[in-house]
């Protein structure tokens, strides 16, 4: 009787334990699958991503997809993976790259650090800022302003070629006064052609090569002529720098030499430069009483203080290329009366967003704004906004033509990215810039 009892207990216990194991597995199912709405776990089954119970595979988030693929790698990849955040940065880098937009940039740790330094007024490298400029259709709008590299005529064979291979060129958008580049005579609009004997990849050579190939097929040129082009391509690409790497050589580092060949129109100029740090205090009262304004945290309080008791204020917006949008809005609240100052549009089909000054400064002084082609981005928007309401006169030369609003996003591993989120538009019938001796009308 006792033995019988024992057997029952043992059997019962074993059954219970087995039941608990099944229960544990069920609990896991519940965690992984049942609570999906809350945890948004994908319906991946046992062997990671290998099997699926979800036919269309559309009901989980990109993050979950990433997570599962990351786990697959950690389990199967030949070497251990030391840094998970690097995987995320790699994925983001590639997403940004897939946009094929010269204004969307992924910056690695080193590049992002110097980018942030530049925003704080410490310019590394040779003391320039550069932008990526695409030839052809994407650049047509910008071509009207000073970014112009000459938009290609529509529908030409060349344009068709460009759309097949799109590599932007690296153009100087700002030269910091007193920097090695300024001393060597580098100018806004110069295009980096060769850096330390490395050719900076751009579309031109590829177009030339494809054209030569087409011409050869059409028997317009001989084999040896084609070979000359081929040889040029080969020699150049053997020592080539992609635009982001080229940019890094110009704007990072605080010591060492760099030799740059610049293209200015059809002319080529060679400069030997020594890298250093060029400081340019972002927010300051200049010796002549002009204000230099940087669109960053604290700018609104600073400008409010400087405006006190003044009826006419001159603000120097030259060499002003980076700024954040929040700061622009805050500054406008202090310097402009309330109203709507233009709008932001996107190509998403969403409604434009107005740039609104809610309370504003009813006792705002008159402004004279010093601008030139190094007035870009938020600074340019600021100038156009004030001018559109007759609050400011622009003095100098044409602004840079960059009215793209961007988000600057830092990532945990020190890298970061820049994402265009809208274009600024303002209702003015003409953009007037008072030149030293004349008024130029532009539209």
């Amino acid at each position: 009787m006792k033995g019988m009892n024992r057997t029952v207990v043992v059997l019962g216990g074993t059954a219970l334990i087995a039941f608990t194991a099944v229960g544990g597995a069920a609990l896991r199912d519940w965690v992984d699958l049942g609570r999906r709405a809350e945890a948004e776990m994908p319906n991946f089954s046992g062997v990671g991503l290998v099997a699926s119970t979800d036919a269309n595979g559309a009901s989980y988030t990109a993050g979950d997809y990433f997570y599962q693929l990351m786990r697959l790698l950690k389990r199967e990849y030949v070497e251990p993976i030391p840094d998970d955040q690097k995987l995320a940065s790699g994925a983001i880098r590639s997403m940004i790259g897939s946009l094929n937009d010269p204004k969307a940039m992924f910056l690695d740790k080193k590049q992002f650090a110097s980018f942030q330094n530049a925003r704080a007024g410490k310019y590394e490298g040779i003391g320039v800022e550069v932008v990526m400029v695409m030839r052809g259709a994407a650049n047509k709008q910008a071509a009207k302003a000073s970014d112009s590299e000459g938009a290609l005529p529509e529908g030409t064979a060349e344009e068709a070629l460009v759309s097949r291979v799109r590599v932007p060129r690296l153009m100087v958008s700002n030269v910091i006064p007193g920097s090695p580049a300024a001393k060597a005579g580098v100018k806004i609009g110069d295009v980096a052609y060769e850096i330390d004997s490395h050719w900076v990849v751009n579309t031109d050579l590829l177009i030339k090569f494809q054209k030569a190939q087409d011409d050869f097929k059409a028997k317009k040129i001989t084999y040896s002529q084609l070979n000359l082009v081929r040889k040029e391509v080969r020699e150049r690409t053997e020592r080539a720098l992609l635009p982001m790497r080229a940019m890094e050589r110009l704007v990072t580092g605080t010591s060492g030499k760099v030799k740059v060949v610049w293209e200015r129109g059809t002319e080529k100029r060679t400069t030997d430069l020594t890298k250093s740090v060029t400081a340019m205090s972002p927010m300051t009262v200049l010796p002549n009483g002009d204000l230099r304004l940087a669109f960053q945290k604290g700018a609104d309080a600073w400008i409010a203080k400087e405006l006190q008791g003044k009826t006419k204020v001159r603000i120097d917006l030259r060499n002003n290329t980076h700024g954040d949008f929040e700061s622009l809005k805050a500054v406008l609240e202090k310097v402009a009366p309330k109203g709507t100052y233009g709008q932001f549009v996107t190509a998403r089909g969403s409604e434009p967003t107005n740039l609104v000054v809610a309370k504003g400064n009813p006792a705002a002084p008159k402004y004279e704004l010093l601008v030139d082609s190094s007035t870009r981005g938020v600074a340019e928007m600021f100038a156009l906004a004030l001018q559109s309401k007759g609050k400011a006169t622009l003095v100098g030369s044409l602004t840079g033509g960059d009215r793209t609003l961007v988000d600057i996003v830092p990532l945990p591993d020190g890298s970061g990215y820049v994402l265009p989120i809208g274009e600024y538009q303002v209702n003015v019938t003409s953009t007037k810039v008072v030149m030293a001796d004349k008024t130029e009308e532009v539209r």
Partner: protein
Amino acid sequence: MKTGIKYVAFAVAALSAGSLGFAWRDLQSGSGVDSRAVNSLLGVKNAKAASPEQVFQQAYNQIRFKYSRQVKPDDLRFAGMQGLLSSLGDPHTLYFPPRAAQLFSEETTGNFFGVGARLSDDAMGVRAAAVFEDGPAYAAGLRINDVIIAVDGKKVGGMPTDAVVLLIKGKEGTFVTLTVAKKGKQQPVTMKIKRARIVAPTVESKFFEDSKVGYIAVSQFAEPTTMQFDRELDKVDRKSPKGLVIDMRSNPGGLLDVAADMLSRFVADKVVVKMVGRNGFNETVRSASNEVRPFGYPVVVLMDENSASAAEIFAGVLRDYNKATLVGTHSYGKSSVQNVFPLVDKSSAKVTIAKYYLPSGDDIGRKVDQDGIYIDGGLKPSVAVELDLDKDPEFGNPKSDNQLQKAIETVLKQARN
């Protein structure tokens, strides 16, 4: 007291069983317990910095919903996954979005049927650049340098070669009619040819009478390659050569066992390659013990950046056992084994799971930067020579192929010593 212990033991057993059940999914897949699932169960919010998947998801959302242009969610995700895999800096760990995954599997299981000829451009149509001796076109009378001027009665003059190839290829067992112009014949010939599965020859040989050097080009390592290699070696040997050039240029590799078999002609019972993977996975491939041929002459292996995988093992093993001199440029640097993992949405991930090491212990793995540009890797040649493209080189023709010239020169120099 005893009963107490029993209860405790029971509780422990039950708890372990429960945990085992919970973690079974992870253990089955060979990894540790998924902390994310545990945290989710216990309601623990990750207090530390954002996890990689959160960072990724945030950026994904930012681009999808805030970027000034519309993006297709799938394209964005595919780009992300490609970047995730390429961030490892391994050119062979790749992500294939659903469509590409399908093409990839078609390509590797490839069922292409044709007539057994390689075609090139010609003003009148397409020219037969090579006709495989075992193929149906050869049997029907097609010979090298014949010009195909019509396919199934349709004139092909002026058509791109690729398009003509598509006309000629078709289902196995069906027929295609070619109208062929032969040199020295007034009238074109018509041939009706039955399409068949084509096995292209992987080994071709030549003998250069002026230098008395044999030449064997191996285009890949497939099932029949060893047999073809032996046959071509016999052909060359009958000419009593002063030396032999084995051309591995543009050979992308293939079956490792075949490379090992071919190496057995040079070295007996020696390590060919070691494969090492995660978690102690270890495998050594050796050459066979009694298949060595007596090579009474020096051997040079010609390689270039398109020599990869099994081709590099072949060249590297001969180098390591002093059986051949390497001439050309550095090879590709493929020293790893991949596995393709199908993913839920019919996309797939090709992941490197193990590495090869040559007998000398060398890892020849290709290193690239994040833009995919070559930094280092591959076998280094003892005699470096770049192909001179300006001579319009034809591989295997010593008159225009300067790398081959160098190889012949090298092998003759060794023959004199």
